């Protein structure tokens, strides 16, 4: 009977804390995998794992960040099973280091469509960090744990990723690009 009550209480807390994030989780998953069925499956597995380990969640902390971390782990494990490894990320980082010689100013007027198209053009490992930081509001520490990389890597990917995003937005000619911003460094 006590077990019933505990399970019931756990479920209610889970429903209140975790379920409101389903929409955001799905959006994140959908962006990563670009396939509705796969995204739904990813979110479902994430929530099943979250429910199983809900006793580890501290109420009052950032539940969305916790769920996104689990989602990232689930996806990482699936990628590993499919034979995709971190070497891809290293190649991306090296490639990026060679192609950002100059960072253009941020365009004034950017539509939602421009923004998402520009984001799509940058390497996935940079997209991922930008999304986790800027959209999901996760701290560097949380991102590092979710992606299983050092904090320094998170910071450099974020820095590079934002530069790439600016470059891509300017390249797409989103709004009047040349505002002179960023050119007056003392």
């Amino acid at each position, binding site marked *: 009977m006590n077990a019933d009550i505990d399970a019931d209480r756990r479920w209610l807390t889970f429903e209140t804390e975790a*379920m409101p994030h*389903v929409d955001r989780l799905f959006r994140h998953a959908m962006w990563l995998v670009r396939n509705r069925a796969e995204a739904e499956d990813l979110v479902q597995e994430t929530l099943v794992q979250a429910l199983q380990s809900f006793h580890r969640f501290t109420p009052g902390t950032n539940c969305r960040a916790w769920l996104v971390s689990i989602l990232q782990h689930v996806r990482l494990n699936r990628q590993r099973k499919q034979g995709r490894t971190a070497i891809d990320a290293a190649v991306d980082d090296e490639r990026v280091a060679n192609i950002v010689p100059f960072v253009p100013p*941020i365009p004034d007027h950017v539509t939602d469509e421009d923004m*998402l198209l520009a984001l799509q053009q940058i390497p996935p490992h940079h997209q991922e960090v930008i999304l986790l*930081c800027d959209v999901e509001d996760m*701290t560097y520490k949380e991102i590092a744990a979710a992606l299983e990389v050092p904090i320094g890597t998170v910071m450099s990917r974020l820095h590079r990723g*934002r530069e790439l995003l600016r470059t891509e937005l300017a390249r797409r000619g989103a709004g009047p690009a040349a*505002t002179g911003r960023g050119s007056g460094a003392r």
Partner: protein
Amino acid sequence: MQCRDVRQLADSFLSEQLLVETNHELLRHLETCPNCRADMAGRRAMRDGLRSAFAGAEELRPRPDFATDLLTKLRPSQSAMVLPQPAMPISRRSVLQSWWALAAGVALAAGGGLFVRHSNSRSRLAQLARQASGDHQNCAVKFNLRERPIQLEEAGRRFGAPYAALATFEPPVVDGSLDMLERHSCVYQGRRYGHVVFRYRGALTSLLVTDGTPPATPELEPSDAGPAVASLPAGRFLGFIVADLDRPSVLRLAQILTEPLSQHLA
């Protein structure tokens, strides 16, 4: 601090990852440097643009019944974990006895089920009331939310018509003055609210509307030391009144607002 340092720290500054002292140094530089200020504003705009683009993208939106389907799939697996093993009857007499026991059990379960269901929905409502109280304190009182609030019209387009309808809701004349201060849609602990802030009898008061099962009638919710909270039906949505007032006043306000609010949001 020089411009070059500011540009290097800009990302960490925006992500609120800098030490307080470094933050202050950077802010001091921004006060005197229009170029860095413009650069920082651009970076902030890019981040906000990305958030808004991501939240509004139709192609990333889940199908409408996805969350409900997930709930259905997840809930039984949870109950299956705690189901007791059935007992095995061993004789005719014990079979007869067990029929009586079964009949009594069914009767008890019917009553108990109603009780459990009621107590579950009460407990859930109490949890949601605590969250609503948190939103009132962090949004209306301290301006301390992680996500910037958006216009109710925009929330209506993205998350459902009742949010947009709240933008035009005019509370009826109530006993005591009611001064409208602010209307927006905000997120607290992952839950979205339509939020109307007004001053009632001199106290900052929140009317919060969120997606959830409404109670049948306005009710006071448990609130330990914080502001008084009453839940109320808001059409097919769930509403809360939160204010640093005495509990009877908050309940009275909820009772006054229930009918016009439900009609307006229907």
